């Protein structure tokens, strides 16, 4: 039943062979050495300082939603950097390989990347940026903030939460290992039928792509269930729907999308796997396969996914604007309705990714109108933010700068999106870099909102603020990079430059490509500024300590508890009386009132099962990629056995006694009193 492979295969090692390690590649081989040296260095340092027990007990086996969130964000930042390096390589190739007389090195006729290698880089860039950078970063913030904002001690299912993190980590590891063992897909991040079929892509690249995305999809679906159940079932007394912080609403709408849309991606990819592993004919050319079935299935997930990542970003902006305008959010209810409307319409627009399929004027018009409808709730949001700032007492803190930057990018991205929603225009610019510039502008809205949130919520998680000077430096460098890279890209799109060119034939475009290359260099400076920001902030952390309400103008419930948040979140669960509870307490002078007595708190135990399951899933993915069947069976069996073992063992949790809580609370209050002096 399994397909016959053209290349070598043996029962022990599957398709693995020494020739699959690209030791002769002049770019990958030095990188591999650097990674190995770096890994030995890090592991050595951990051993030298004797931190393994700490790491295992406090981080790797934790079920604490805040620590899991921090680890999600760390994975997201590492993958964001990897994706950025991919972007830098793409830009460098396009700035270099222009015109017939451009030079070529490392085996490439033009530039320094062969077409096959270039194809892998842009495919990995897309997968990483959307599924392994933006998604974990946003999920990380949801994880940290949502339970505190609704007054819960943890997520509804803390163990499942840890499992979601380790599945995401396994996916990240799988895509990283594809750099050094075998190759990655060259079919673009969303794949095209039938190029991903075994006949046309006989290597393991497409398999890496399939199983990486499957793992992220599984992790995100489980995470979505967890967050939805948390919001619906775990709210503190008095936290009615009308009092829910707006970021929670945004998270809710986003995860309704995640829950319903990710299964479609899982099926689409599983059907490619059926084609490639079992010889099925879902998307083959001939024998009854249907090429456009794949494109439809993929974008039925793909477009909702776009709103899955943008809605939390909108939620973050909706928290930051009121805090630094010292005003309540304008139009709370319309904001909620707009989020839900965007989540609903997200299901009706997928075909605008391929108007050129030739579905005919009626289908295209329907999807065109549906796409334009998205502009209405989004417009409502933009006006709400503008009216929030209108006549407010504005503080141009770096978080606020990032949020305002996001607002401007949303305008540009939204308006170019409206242009692309018109099929007549879409036919002209289809697959041009105009489209690329459009969706990068939209994804940069998310990146801006994420960096705004890093600045905004950092003191809540770690108890001290980030350095303002380096934060501002990073912001301005990043924004300069954005303008320098994407304004020329819009222009090139209108000039007819198509996307994914490993060789640019038209020398007229060269100056624009050089400006973009310069922009990438400026982005690189902003990355360095970010490193400096972290270094300086951690060095000076004693100077920048904060109390519970880090900004003094904060509004929602997470600012009621101490910074850094104790592992039990609230010593006594708060009773909610108002929307913007903290602002309400502050305005009425009761924000320093502490509970008069403490009670026992029941908390879940740490578990090593989640990280082991993540590791086994990685092994399963790797074995599937290389078709090592015995290892697939073994890891699958181990996974099932471990799940059953965990269900027998259960977790009774443990009790923190009232006296212990009181001791910890007194210590936290003493610390806060010192800071305010």
């Amino acid at each position, binding site marked *: 039943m399994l397909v016959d492979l053209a290349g070598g295969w043996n029962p022990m090692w599957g398709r693995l062979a020494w020739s699959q390690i690209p030791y002769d590649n002049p770019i990958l081989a030095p990188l591999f050495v650097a990674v190995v040296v770096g890994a030995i260095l890090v592991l050595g340092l951990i051993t030298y300082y004797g931190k393994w027990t700490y790491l295992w007990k406090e981080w790797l086996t934790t079920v604490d939603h805040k620590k899991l969130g921090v680890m999600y964000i760390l994975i997201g930042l590492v993958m964001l950097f990897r994706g950025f390096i991919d972007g830098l390589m793409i830009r460098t190739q396009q700035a270099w390989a222009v015109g017939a007389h451009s030079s070529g090195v490392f085996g490439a006729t033009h530039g320094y990347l062969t077409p096959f290698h270039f194809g892998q880089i842009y495919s990995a860039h897309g997968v990483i940026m959307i599924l392994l950078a933006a998604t974990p970063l946003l999920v990380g913030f949801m994880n940290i903030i949502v339970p505190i904002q609704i007054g819960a001690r943890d997520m*509804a*299912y803390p163990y499942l939460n840890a499992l979601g993190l380790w599945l995401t980590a396994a996916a990240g590891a799988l895509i990283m290992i594809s750099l050094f063992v075998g190759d990655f897909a060259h079919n673009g991040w969303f794949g095209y039928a039938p190029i991903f079929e075994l006949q046309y892509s006989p290597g393991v690249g497409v398999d890496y792509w399939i199983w990486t995305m499957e793992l992220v999809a599984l992790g995100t679906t489980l995470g979505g269930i967890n967050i939805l*159940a948390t919001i619906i*079932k775990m709210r503190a007394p008095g936290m009615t729907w009308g009092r829910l912080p707006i970021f929670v609403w945004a998270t809710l709408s986003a995860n309704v999308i995640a829950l319903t849309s*990710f*299964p479609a991606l899982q099926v689409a990819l599983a059907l490619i796997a059926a084609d490639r592993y079992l010889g*099925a004919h879902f998307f083959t050319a*001939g024998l*009854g396969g249907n090429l456009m079935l794949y494109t439809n299935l993929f974008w039925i997930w793909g477009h909702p996914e776009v709103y899955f990542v943008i809605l939390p970003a909108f939620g973050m902006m909706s928290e930051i604007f009121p805090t630094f305008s010292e005003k309540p959010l304008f139009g709370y209810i319309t904001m909620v309705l707009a989020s839900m409307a965007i989540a609903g319409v997200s299901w009706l627009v997928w075909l605008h990714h391929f108007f050129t399929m030739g579905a005919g004027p009626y289908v295209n018009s329907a999807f065109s109108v549906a796409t334009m409808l998205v502009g209405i709730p989004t417009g409502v949001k933009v006006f709400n933010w503008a009216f929030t700032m209108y006549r407010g007492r504005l503080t141009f803190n770096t978080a606020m700068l990032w949020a305002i930057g996001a607002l401007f990018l949303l305008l540009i991205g939204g308006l170019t999106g409206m242009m692309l929603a018109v099929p007549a225009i879409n036919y002209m610019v289809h697959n041009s870099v105009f489209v690329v510039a459009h969706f990068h502008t939209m994804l940069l809205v998310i990146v801006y909102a994420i960096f705004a949130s890093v600045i905004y919520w950092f003191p809540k998680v770690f108890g001290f603020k980030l350095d303002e000077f380096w934060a501002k430096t990073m912001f301005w460098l990043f924004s300069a990079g954005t303008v320098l890279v994407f304004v020329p890209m819009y222009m090139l799109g209108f000039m007819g430059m198509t996307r994914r060119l490993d060789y640019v034939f038209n020398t007229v475009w060269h100056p624009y490509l050089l400006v973009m290359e310069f922009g990438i260099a400026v982005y690189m400076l902003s990355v360095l500024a970010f490193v400096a920001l972290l270094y300086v902030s951690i060095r000076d952390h004693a100077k920048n300590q904060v109390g519970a309400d880090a900004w003094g103008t904060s509004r929602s419930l997470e600012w009621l508890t101490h910074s850094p948040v104790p592992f039990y979140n609230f010593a006594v669960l708060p009773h909610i009386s*108002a929307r913007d509870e903290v602002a309400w307490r502050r305005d009425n002078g009761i924000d320093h009132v502490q509970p008069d007595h403490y009670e026992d708190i029941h908390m879940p135990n740490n578990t090593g099962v989640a990280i082991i399951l993540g590791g086994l899933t990685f092994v399963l993915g790797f074995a599937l990629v290389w078709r090592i069947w015995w290892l697939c069976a073994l890891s699958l069996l181990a996974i099932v056995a471990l799940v059953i073992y965990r269900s027998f063992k259960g977790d009774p949790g443990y009790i923190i006694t009232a006296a212990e809580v009181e001791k910890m609370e007194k210590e936290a209050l003493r610390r806060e009193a010192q800071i305010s002096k």
Partner: protein
Amino acid sequence: MSSHASNVDPKTAELWDKSHYQHDVISTRTFGYFMYLLSDGMLFATLFAAYGVLSYQHSYFGGPTPADFVKPWYTFAQTMALFLSVLAYGLGMNALKHKNKSGVINGLLAALVLGVLFLALDIHDMTHLASLGISVATSGGVSAFIVLTQVHATHVFFGLIWILVMMAQVLTKGFTTEVVGRLLTLRMFWHLQAIIWVFVYVFVYLWGYMS
């Protein structure tokens, strides 16, 4: 009036929870599981969509179509096995209400046996197809037919493992909150497989047989 204004008087407001507020463990569990089942439903919806697109005449590429190899009465026997399995599970849950351990075990055992019967009939059917030379590699239409039905069968297979685990847990642990919660979620899962099967039987087997 700012939007966060509340009609609660701040002087007398209750600021901290005094009601010993507890989240209902079983309700949180079953609700989350229900959402998982929704996502599972979306998974099947996508597979049905793929089957719909790949069930035109040209999808079979001149090869065999379900009309050639589907036996409606054979599949009806499968239907009955699965439905009776769900009924047996429901009777077991009825015994749970009376904390009747042997009743629960008997219900689960009957559900297990009938589920195994369903799966055995399915495997027999698939080996029969294979002996005719019909496999996923035959044509796009047959790929969709086999993958959709076998994804359902895989769900049933994992459900059977789960039933076995629950029998062991009822016997060793008794009716703890965790075990009762799992019995309820398994009931939801088992019902969903039967509901999905209704669609598989009607739209894949019967419709395929008729067309």
